[in-house]
């Protein structure tokens, strides 16, 4: 990788100066900047041209370009495996270039587990077209029909004669045999339409293998890989002082008492800029700023009642049969209300970006965004210039889990406004409280469920209504605060099918606007946007817990009960696989002798989901300490079927990630707010899982090489929370219907009469 080379050279230079005493007076320019800008020759971006995507270098290495980005899931490696496989070159010769608006085609936002399912399949087709183009060149060179050529390790052979890809392409631009067309460029429906046929999966030797991730070594060595590490010549460090309340506006701002600090205000965007970062931090802490009072937000204690009163935009997800009629004839009904809290994405490093708005009208932005082209357009709109004038260089960032997917980068837009104001490159680094307060959170939801059973205990009616604020706040804070209104905040949405075969079923999402958005001068309220498996996480929690309630009512094993109400064989298969791996005890819940006294016994719970083509089922084993109410999640087993597996190790790590992160969400996490703003301002007031409480994770992968691959980053996120609450019920006989399962609430729920 360029990035590594750049750093190594620079590091050596740095060390050459070493010895007794090193004095470094200037801010060293990060070699990451050079690496991100260092471009191999590439043509003007035209997605219908093969050379836009692929280049064969003289040394036989292959450059493949994708608009998707690495978020820590192993995208770079998996995409490289797909390209290497299709081209028949060793994996080590593939160099992926990701997410740079001047170099990579627009394949849409890296979100919704789409990198493999969409961008990967597009690249697979591109690589197949590339292979066909190379075989045609080889056929002409060797005078042998293409169907008699063989390829191994980038060398095409016919009998004893052979020629390498590098020799074939030397001096030429790689051109597809038959022109390819691109449909819906940049959108989720984007398709590469070509004539080449990708390889038969039964011949794979690279896809499906446990190839180590190519991004890990640099991270382990502490190399500059993150946007936080970007430093450019002449750069100023900025800290933004965000409004006091969500809708507060600036009343007054004084001068900074820190020497050399420059105060910049544009509208309600207030910032301090300094040559040294620590001066900016001190200045931000001490700057005299007065904001207007704003108190239009319902507090987190009262929010669930408020959600039901907001104007809704309804979306019917499932509508089958006559639910009202069936409920009317039911021998018995069950009803329950579930709720989930507002949550943080919780990037471990707060937002950071660098922008350089230059006097010639060109703009460079370094960002960890999930969508470089989206940010490019936003910055262009913010400045009133053409997207062609804006280059977004994407560096890795702390895991963001959707935080940079709809709102592409608050810090970047703030840096753009500030850089334009001062005529120098500006690095905006949020502090911890900025991120905890101002990130667009995961929305809290409330769910009403009702089921009707006939005299034999069969489910004849199912109804699930959910109230959820928007999942798609795309506000760019730099724009909104500086007075440029650009985009709306959207409404809440439902995601995911109801797999159960209940004869009469209705699933309705009451999509809500953002909380208090209508009462804010900025057009946004309590910002909420996509958080890892958005919408479906909340829906699945309520659905899978309520299915468990029904199973308990009819005294049926909750796993068998599910299987009896499913028709999809892949759904049934993941349930059976997880049951086997977890040693599921087939019996109704709660277990015999289950008691609110808990007495240390372990409960088991199961849940199922289908998320964008990927099936996942989980079994959780938990214990409950009746004295404290603490829920201990001992183990979580997940079985997953995402079709064809690209890299089993990466998939296992994604499952481990999903289980640990979601255990954290289920047990601990809740954004709190008063009538003005978020009050959970740091990790002490928004605790997350620590290693002490991390469950043991077992992943069972079901491989279907013949089925098109789907995402692995989100599906298993959905099944963890319901499996845990179902296991708590199994251990205690107490049904808890609100997340998080904080110890104080669980303890209260276990009290007699509660």
């Amino acid at each position, binding site marked *: 990788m360029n990035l590594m080379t750049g750093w190594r050279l620079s590091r050596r230079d740095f060390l050459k100066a070493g010895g007794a005493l090193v004095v*470094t007076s200037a801010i060293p320019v990060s070699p990451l900047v050079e690496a991100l800008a260092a471009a191999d020759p590439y043509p003007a971006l035209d997605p219908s041209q093969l050379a836009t995507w692929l280049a064969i270098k003289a040394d036989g290495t292959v450059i493949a370009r994708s608009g998707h980005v690495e978020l820590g899931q192993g995208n770079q490696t998996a995409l490289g495996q797909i390209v290497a496989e299709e081209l028949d070159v060793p994996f080590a010769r593939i160099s992926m270039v990701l997410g740079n608006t001047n170099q990579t085609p627009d394949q849409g936002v890296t979100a919704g587990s789409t990198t493999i399912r969409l961008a990967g399949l597009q690249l697979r087709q591109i690589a197949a077209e590339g292979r066909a183009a190379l075989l045609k060149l080889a056929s002409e060179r060797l005078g042998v029909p293409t169907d008699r050529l063989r390829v191994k390790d980038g060398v095409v052979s016919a009998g004893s004669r052979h020629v390498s890809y590098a020799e074939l392409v030397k001096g030429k631009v790689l051109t597809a045999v038959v022109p390819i067309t691109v449909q819906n460029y940049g959108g989720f429906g984007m398709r590469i339409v070509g004539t080449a046929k990708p390889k038969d999966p039964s011949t794979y030797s690279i896809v499906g293998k446990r190839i180590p991730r190519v991004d*890990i070594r640099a991270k382990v060595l502490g190399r500059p890989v993150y946007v936080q590490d970007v430093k450019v010549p002449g750069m100023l460090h900025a800290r933004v002082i965000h409004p006091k309340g969500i809708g507060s506006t600036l009343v007054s701002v004084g001068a900074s008492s820190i020497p050399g600090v420059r105060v910049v205000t544009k509208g309600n965007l207030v910032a301090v800029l300094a040559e040294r970062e620590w001066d900016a931090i001190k200045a931000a802490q001490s700057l005299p700023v007065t904001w207007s009072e704003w108190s239009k937000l319902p507090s987190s204690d009262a929010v669930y009642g408020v959600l039901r009163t907001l104007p809704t935009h309804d979306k019917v997800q499932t509508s089958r049969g006559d639910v009202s009629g069936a409920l009317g004839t039911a021998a018995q009904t069950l009803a329950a209300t579930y709720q989930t809290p507002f949550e943080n994405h919780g990037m*471990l490093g707060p937002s950071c970006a660098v922008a350089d708005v230059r006097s010639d009208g060109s703009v460079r932005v370094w960002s960890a965004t999930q969508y470089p082209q989206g940010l490019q357009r936003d910055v262009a709109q913010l400045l009133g210039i053409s997207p062609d004038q804006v280059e977004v260089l994407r560096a890795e960032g702390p895991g963001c889990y959707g935080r940079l997917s709809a709102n592409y980068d608050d810090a970047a837009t703030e840096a753009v406004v500030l850089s334009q104001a001062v005529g120098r490159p500006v690095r905006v680094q949020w502090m911890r409280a900025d991120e905890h307060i101002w990130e667009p959170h995961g929305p809290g939801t409330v769910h009403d469920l009702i089921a009707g059973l006939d005299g034999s205990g069969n489910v004849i009616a199912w109804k699930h209504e959910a109230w959820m604020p928007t999942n798609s706040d795309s506000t760019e804070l730099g724009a909104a605060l500086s007075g440029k209104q650009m985009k709306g905040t959207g409404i809440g949405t439902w995601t995911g099918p109801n797999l159960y075969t209940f004869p009469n079923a209705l699933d309705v999402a009451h999509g809500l606007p953002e909380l208090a958005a209508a009462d804010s001068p900025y057009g946004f309220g309590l910002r909420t946007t996509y958080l890892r498996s958005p919408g479906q996480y909340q829906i699945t929690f309520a659905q899978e817990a309520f299915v468990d309630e029904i199973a308990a009512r009819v005294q049926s094993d909750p796993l068998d009960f599910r299987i009896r109400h499913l028709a999809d064989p892949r759904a049934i298969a993941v349930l059976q696989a997880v049951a086997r791996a977890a040693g599921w005890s087939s019996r109704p819940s709660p277990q015999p002798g289950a008691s609110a006294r808990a007495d240390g016994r372990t409960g088991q719970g199961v849940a199922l989901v289908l998320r964008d083509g990927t099936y996942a089922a989980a079994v959780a084993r938990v214990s409950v300490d009746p004295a404290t109410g603490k829920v201990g999640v001992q183990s979580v087993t997940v079985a997953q079927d995402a079709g064809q597996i690209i890299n089993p190790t990466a998939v296992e790590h994604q499952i481990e990630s999903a289980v640990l992160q979601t255990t954290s969400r289920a047990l601990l996490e809740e954004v709190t707010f008063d009538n003005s703003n978020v009050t959970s301002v740091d990790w*002490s007031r928004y605790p997350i899982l620590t290693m002490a409480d991390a469950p043991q994770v077992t992943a069972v992968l079901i491989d279907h090489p013949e089925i098109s691959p789907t995402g692995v980053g989100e599906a298993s996120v959905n099944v963890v929370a319901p499996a845990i609450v179902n296991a708590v019920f199994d251990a205690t006989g107490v049904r808890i219907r609100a997340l998080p399962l904080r110890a104080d609430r669980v303890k209260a729920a276990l009290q007699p009469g509660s």
Partner: protein
Amino acid sequence: MGEFDGHRGPEEGRDLPWSPLSRRRLLTAGIGAALAAGAAAAVLESCEQSTPAGGGGKLELTINGTKHAIQSTPDTPLLYVLRDELGLVGTRFGCGLGQCGACAVLIGGKETRSCVTPVSGIKGEITTVEGLPALWAQKRGLTGAKAAQTLHPVQQAWIEEQVPQCGYCQSGMMIMAVDLLSRIPHPSEAQIRKAFTDTPPSAHLCRCGTYDSIIRAVQRAARSMA
């Protein structure tokens, strides 16, 4: 990927001039007080040492075996000196409050949060994630090319277990592991969990969900260091 450029680790046999335990207690207390304000400043104030102020090049720190004259003001937390003045960006900014561990370095061999440690008070040699290979080379007496190509076993284990996802917290995690293994060469799983959770001033936080991988990597490192 290229080979690693090793550089010198801290000299052995030096006395540790201050007790990290007392410092940690101070930090814990300071953070408790600072929470109400949500500010790092209070923490930093409580940590001020009696050492004469450095700055202007008077202050010297030994980092990864090299002495550096520090230009930053004495109240500057070590984190910003490492990242901004010396270009050692492997130490990450996570919270500025001593709450997450992303900024951990070794000072005198002890895991310390650089985001709440003013440079003026530091006595002891500093090792950052970039200095871990040299630390190990020195311990094992490796020199020349061998030293330059050898990673610290903790880093090697992190690679072999494919621990990082986003990787942002992992420098601090590896620093914690090196500290732990220096005290307890063969920690049990419970000891590993406890070290990463209960070492003041806070648990080491990972948001991506790598705790299980970290446990496996620490165990692997312990085996290879034996």
